[in-house]
Structures are given as structure tokens and as C-alpha cells.
């Protein structure tokens, strides 16, 4: 297990700060992009280009009254919003941001990732139940069912990536893509993973959890003030995390496309220039994927719940397993 080149505490501080701030940025970007797509203006009053809009929103949220439903379960109601935030923050621990720039290099990194993601379900389920409202409960159950269902294709898609790296360490997975990105050698896996990531983040077109027409606000119907703020924050953090994961698994992480072929003209590993280049490349790809998330949300309409389930179980999952088997077979033929 190699150690990171900079102290992992510094990287952790940086990563957490960026992740927390990114939520605010993504909210702003989402509103501007949505406005652009719908031919509107969008927020442009607070600060230059409306850049301070997220700040104003947060101030507003903080000063709102914090209501807990009287027959709900107060403790769980308070704890629930913390779960999605915690799981999102934990995920950063295993993502490599650059050559030697990671918080920790677990040899079971991929499994850790899946395990942490699987814990995210509790937040929604608990929120739905503790609110003592049928809309919340239905929203929570839907969310739990959806997240459980899409974990499987997601896991299988990741497994097909692991076949190339022959390692469960995230750093090894990124380094295995130095010549060819995962997207090029395993396109089906990339598509499946992206779809599953959308579902895991409860984003459109899979945002049935908060389908306004049916469920008012879904599991956070009864939430207000900063508790709601936390769910809101977590949703955008999950968008960012999802983008980071797609980048890491299928877009070559911090590597430029086909970087292995012209590695000699890039800065040496371990220098500041290389570190900055890596982070810039990584953030660039992540930013693009975030844009794709937003783009899809305002382009594709919402699924029905039965469509969602049959897509997950009877299409994505068999496809992901088939993809895995075919790739394993081809790799075996090549290697022998």
C-alpha cells in the first residue's frame, strides 16, 4: 500500500472543503443551465451574474422554523438527514485525485465504496418513516427499493472494470486506464454504471422519490430549515460524487486520454506541475459529468415506477452480468 505524496490529512481537508462547497456551486450551475435550456434568464440578481444566490438561499434556510411532526419519531427524524451527507463524505476517502494524491489506498477500495453507498439507503428510509406521513413513507420506501435495485447493476458494472485492473484498489483501477480509458474498452459497463449512478443519486429521470404529482415532496415532505438543507446538500453532493466515480472508473480518472502514449512530454510524476495538471484534468472531467447530470434532468422526462423497476431488474442487471461474463471470457482468451 503506497503512501500518498502529500500528507493525507491535507488532501482530506482539501477534498472535503471542495466537496462541501461544490454543492453550492452545482446548485447555482443547475439553475443557470436549466434556465438556459428552458430559454429563461435564471437567477441573476444577487451578486454578479447571481453568483451569491446559493449563499442567500442558505441564509434563508437557516432562519426558517425547524418543524418536527408531532407524532413522528423525533430522534430518528433528526438523525435521518445526516446519513446521506455522511455517506457522501465517506466516499471521498478512496477516490484518487491525482498521481499519489489520495486519502487512502485501500486494497478493497471498490468494495468499501459499494458498502458505503449501500448505507445511504437508511437516511431516506428513516426520514420517510419518522415523519409520520404517508407521502413521506411511500417516498422513503420507493427510494429504498430503487437504491437497492440499482446497486446490483452498479456492482456488476464495477466488477467488469475490476477485470481490467485485476485489483480492487481504486488507484490501480485508475492506473490501468492510462492507455485506454474504461469507456473505450468497456462501453456497455460505462453506460450501465452511468444509468445506475443516476438512480442511486435519485436524480431525474429516476427521481420518483420526490414525484410532486404523487408524493408532494417524497421523503422530505415534512422537513424544513437546515434539516431539509442537509437533504438538499446531500443530493448535490451525490451528483458530484457520482460524477467523480464515473470519472474514476470509466473516464481514466486523472489521466489525459491515451496519456500512456505521450507520457514523456508530460511533467514528471511527483512534481507540482504534474499534481496541478492531474487535479485539473480530474476536476474538468467531473465538471463535465456534473453538466451531463443536469443536462439529462432537464431533457428526459420521469419514468413510471414499474418502468424503473423492470429497467433495473430485467434489463440492466442481465445486461451487466452478460457484459461481465463476455469481458471475462475475452480477457481469458487474450491472456492465455
Amino acid at each position: 500500500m503506497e503512501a500518498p505524496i502529500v500528507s493525507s490529512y491535507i488532501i482530506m481537508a482539501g477534498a472535503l472543503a471542495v466537496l462541501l462547497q461544490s454543492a453550492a456551486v452545482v446548485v447555482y450551475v443547475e439553475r443557470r443551465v436549466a434556465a438556459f435550456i428552458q430559454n429563461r434568464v435564471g437567477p441573476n440578481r444577487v451578486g454578479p451574474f447571481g453568483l451569491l444566490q446559493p449563499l442567500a438561499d442558505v441564509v434563508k434556510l437557516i432562519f426558517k422554523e425547524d418543524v418536527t411532526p408531532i407524532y413522528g419519531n423525533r430522534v430518528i427524524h433528526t438523525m435521518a438527514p445526516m446519513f446521506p451527507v455522511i455517506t457522501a463524505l465517506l466516499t471521498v476517502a478512496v477516490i484518487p485525485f491525482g498521481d499519489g494524491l489520495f486519502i487512502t489506498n485501500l486494497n478493497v477500495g471498490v468494495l468499501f465504496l459499494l458498502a458505503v453507498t449501500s448505507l445511504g439507503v437508511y437516511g431516506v428510509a428513516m426520514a420517510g418513516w419518522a415523519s409520520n406521513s404517508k407521502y413521506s413513507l411511500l417516498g422513503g420506501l420507493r427510494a429504498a427499493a430503487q437504491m437497492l435495485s440499482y446497486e446490483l447493476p452498479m456492482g456488476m458494472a464495477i466488477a467488469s472494470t475490476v477485470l481490467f485492473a485485476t485489483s480492487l484498489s481504486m488507484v490501480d483501477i485508475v492506473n490501468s486506464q492510462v492507455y485506454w480509458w474504461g469507456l473505450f474498452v468497456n462501453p456497455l459497463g460505462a453506460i450501465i454504471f452511468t444509468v445506475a449512478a443516476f438512480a442511486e443519486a435519485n436524480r431525474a429521470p429516476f427521481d420518483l422519490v420526490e414525484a410532486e404529482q404523487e408524493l408532494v415532496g417524497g421523503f422530505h415532505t415534512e422537513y424544513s430549515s437546515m434539516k431539509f438543507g442537509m437533504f438538499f446538500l446531500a443530493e448535490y453532493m451525490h451528483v458530484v460524487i457520482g460524477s467523480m466515480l464515473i470519472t474514476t472508473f470509466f473516464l481514466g480518472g486523472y489521466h489525459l486520454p491515451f496519456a500512456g502514449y505521450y507520457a514523456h512530454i508530460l511533467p514528471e510524476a511527483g512534481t507540482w506541475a504534474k499534481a496541478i495538471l492531474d487535479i485539473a484534468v480530474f476536476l474538468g472531467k467531473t465538471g463535465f459529468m456534473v453538466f451531463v447530470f443536469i443536462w439529462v434532468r432537464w431533457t428526459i422526462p420521469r419514468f413510471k415506477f414499474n418502468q424503473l423497476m423492470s429497467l433495473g431488474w430485467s434489463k440492466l442487471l442481465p445486461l451487466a452480468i452478460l457484459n461481465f461474463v463476455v469481458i471475462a471470457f475475452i480477457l481469458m482468451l487474450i491472456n492465455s
Partner: protein
Amino acid sequence: METFFFVFISTLAIGTALAMVISKNTVNSALFMVLHMLSVAGFYTLLNAQFLAVIQILVYAGAIMVLFLFVIMLLNLDEDEKVVSKIDFKQLISFTLALVVLAQLLYITGNYAGVLPELTGEPIAAVGTVEAIGDELFTTFLLPFEVTAILLTAAVVGAMLLAQKTSNVIDE
């Protein structure tokens, strides 16, 4: 550091297990169970079995307990009035018996603490890794592994058999 971690995790594990049994609200019980699973995963980490630890979280805490929670929430169980309403003779006997068995087990394990070989450093680091487990699973334990697949399939088919609508009985 390791001792501290062990004591911390053990306290958490025992505490959550007790809380799970005592708790009057079933949802709370289930959530304590999740915490308990997580602390057990902590033990595995302490023993250098990262793979098991992660699988413990992934399978038990992440999947099975969610389904438990699901069912409990859907059924919307009411709180029990009291777990121990009044102590009667039968409960007393069963409690004593349980205590005796526990004492015996503690005695047995206490006598044999340190009998197993102490693995440190390199060998133990190699035991818990994914590669080591994968190797064992597909060579030595191939037969049990394959039969486990049959076992799980049988469980799924059995659940279907018991849960389907009666009207499915057709033909002849």
C-alpha cells in the same frame, strides 16, 4: 491504540445488541441491529480481515437490514407495552438456564484463550485479503461454494413457492 479500539468496539457491539433486544420500538431495534452489524465489521477490521469487514457492511447492514426495515415500516407495528411484563416461573428457569450456558461457554473460551496460534505481521496480512479468500474459495472450498449457490437458489424458489397466489395452481 488497538486495545482502545477493541474496547470501544466491544462496548458498542454489546451495547447495541442489548439495546436491540430491550428496545420497545421495532424500528429502533432494527436500527440498533444495523449499528451492531457495523461494530462487528469493526472487529473484522481489527483482525485484518478487510474483505470480511466490507462484505459484512455490504450484505448485512446494507442489504438485509434494509429489507427488515422495509417490512417493519410497511407493517407499521405498534409498540409492545412491555418486554418483560411480569416475571413468571418459566421465564425465571429459562433465564437461569441461559445464564448457565453462558457461564459454561465463557469458562470454556476463557480456558482456551491463547491456544490458537498468534499470527502477526505478514501472515495475518495475507489471510484477510481478497486474493487469499478468492484463492481458497475457488480451490479448496469449491464444492461448498457451488453448493451454496444451489442453497441460495433453493431459498429463492422456496420463498416464491410460499408467497405466490394460490390461484396459480392450474392444468390437469
